[in-house]
């Protein structure tokens, strides 16, 4: 009896000291990484942090294959006030949303005195996207923007310069497709499916006309510009520059079709470049990339992409998590990710880094595009705004509504949401 009792006590004591030492010595950080952004390479960056901070252990969690699915997952985790995630990667449209909902904690305290100087190190668009009312709500993970990819070989063959305006693009596309006489060759591919990319599709010409969608949290909808934007895309379909079922085309469909050699011009994000130059590509070394065209008389505009690191308000290790995020949002990690995962850097100087230039030469031409890219509207109700825009674009391209009707409905619905 006594022996048993002593043993139990001893064991309990040992267990307690053991768990106590674990609790003080080891912080376990759970990090949500989007599965489409090379979690394998991020893992290596996290390993570097673990090596420097032996008391921190980082676990990766991935979930959902698309930005929307990931948002849904995070929605349920956050609304449940679940502490199981400490750090999460967020599409650039979400930090403001998450801050408004009270789901993330600001970095100001960890950054210390000069918050502005700290944020000024990043490309201005990212400093802006992650700052809400003076609070730093997330730190940039990497940059992205939309580009115009074109078939260098075909343009050269027909003596055409990369287009500066959408009108020039239409003319060039018609000329090339007519001369090539290949029924499989499309002039232009862009995103017409009701996905997040279609929001950018709508905004590209709209922004190019110098218009804003939201200013100071209020809707500043320019209906005329909206009609023109929708009409521009619809005309591409009607005139045969884009294919008839463009309303079914998602981002990777554009990539695949261009990669198979069936597209002259394509609007796409930076990830496409690596695939176009890959071994399986039919257009390897025949691809050019430039900034997107402007509308006649307007400024060229691109859509700002990229992802950010936020720290959950329900995390039990907020400070430790923020220190970790400061590390993975540093120029060193940015350079590492640029070289190893072809993710565009969020720091201007990394673009001219020797090793980066060697690994991904085209990043040099990407920098001005990223610098001038515009951010999608910042609002806590972004999900609704996005849904309204993308379903309208999709409906107009499918011939379900005229551009005028589409713009009208879009305005009415946006007004309700941003009332």
């Amino acid at each position: 009896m006594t022996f048993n009792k002593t043993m139990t006590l001893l064991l309990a004591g040992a267990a307690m000291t053991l768990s106590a030492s674990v609790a003080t010595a080891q912080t376990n950080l759970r990090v949500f990484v989007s599965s489409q952004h090379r979690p394998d390479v991020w893992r290596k960056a996290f390993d570097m942090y673990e090596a420097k901070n032996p008391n921190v252990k980082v676990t990766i969690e991935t979930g959902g294959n698309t930005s929307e699915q990931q948002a849904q997952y995070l929605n349920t985790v956050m609304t449940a006030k679940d502490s199981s995630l400490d750090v999460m990667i967020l599409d650039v449209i979400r930090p403001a949303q998450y801050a408004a909902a009270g789901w993330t904690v600001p970095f100001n305290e960890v950054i210390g005195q000069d918050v502005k100087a700290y944020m000024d190190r990043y490309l201005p668009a990212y400093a802006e996207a992650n700052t809400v009312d003076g609070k730093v709500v997330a730190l940039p993970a990497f940059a992205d923007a939309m580009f115009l990819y074109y078939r260098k070989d075909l343009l050269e063959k027909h003596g055409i310069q990369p287009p500066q305006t959408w009108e020039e693009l239409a003319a060039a596309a018609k000329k090339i497709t007519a001369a090539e006489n290949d029924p499989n060759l499309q002039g232009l591919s862009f995103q017409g499916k009701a996905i997040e990319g279609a929001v950018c599709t709508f905004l590209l010409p709209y922004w190019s006309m110098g218009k804003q969608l939201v200013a100071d949290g209020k809707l500043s909808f320019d209906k005329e510009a909206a009609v023109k934007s929708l009409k521009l895309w619809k005309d591409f379909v009607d005139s045969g520059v884009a294919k008839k079922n463009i309303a079914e085309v998602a981002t990777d469909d554009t990539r695949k079709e261009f990669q198979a050699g069936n597209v002259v011009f394509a609007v796409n994000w930076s990830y496409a470049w690596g695939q176009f130059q890959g071994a399986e590509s039919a257009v390897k070394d025949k691809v050019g990339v430039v900034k997107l065209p402007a509308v006649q008389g307007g400024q060229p505009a691109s859509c700002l992409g990229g992802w950010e690191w936020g720290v959950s308000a329900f995390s039990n290790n907020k400070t430790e998590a923020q220190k970790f995020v400061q590390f993975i949002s540093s120029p060193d990690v940015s350079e590492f990710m640029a070289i190893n995962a072809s993710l565009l850097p969020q720091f201007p100087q990394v673009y001219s880094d020797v090793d980066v230039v060697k690994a991904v030469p085209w990043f040099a031409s990407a920098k001005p595009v990223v610098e001038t890219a515009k951010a999608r509207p910042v609002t806590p109700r972004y999900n609704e705004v996005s849904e309204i825009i993308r379903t309208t674009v999709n409906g107009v391209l499918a011939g379900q509504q005229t551009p005028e009707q589409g713009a009208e409905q879009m305005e009415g619905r946006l007004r309700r949401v941003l009332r």
Partner: protein
Amino acid sequence: MSHETTANNRSIFSGKPLRILIGFILVVNGMFPALWILFTSLKTESELTLKPITWLPHAPTVANYLRAFTDQPLLLFLFNSFMVAILSTALTLFVSVLAAYALARLQIRGRDLILSAIIAVSTFPLVTLLVPLFEIMRALGLLNTWVALILPYTVLSLPVCTLILVSFFEGIPRDLENSAMIDGCTRIGALFKVVVPLSAPGVFTAGILAFVNAWDEFLLALSFNSNPMLRTLPVGITLYQGEFAFPWPVISAALVVGIVPVAVLIVIFQERVVSGLTSGGIKG
């Protein structure tokens, strides 16, 4: 073979070749979609993009099946679906056996009212309760757990299972039960030792219906369990489509994997299922 004794077997269609043709139409209508997805799952990606399309796979491959299990945690989806379906079936049977016994055997005032209420629940649109259920599960910390699905699925099948069991229990002679009780059984003892075993076909039928209901459910599983590790099969497969791609051959393979368990269940218990469906649907 009660079929022969009935209505239309003497119709204009009684000629043998015509009958074979009609049987063929029925089988094609029922099986073709599943067969087509089986063919698709055996084709390579390049064969799939041939124009015009091929019908039978030229060079059948199981590569898509390997990818279906490795691209996404398909095994985990299967496991989640199985556990949720089996646990909710068990709970449904337990609860509905008790309720059906009370309704079939005990003197209850307002029995008709209770039965009507149960029928009303059987037609209840669970979709409308998405918000409150979401909030309840959130408040109880049950989002992203099996329990968040087991409880609603139990309610989903409870009415039909109760009705099936009531009609089976009513068909069991009371004398059997009484003699068990004379031998010293309690009422509950008699229920589980005599009534339930004698109604085994009914319990089985109810169980299969509850299982299929839970296996098929989509909306709640999609809404409450967004964590990929906790997805059920229908949700997991639907969300195979990636940020940029919709891999049809892999989805087809995953679909085949998802169809097989239910198909096996149906093949083995076809007559039970038919009788259950019709008694549950018609007796009301």
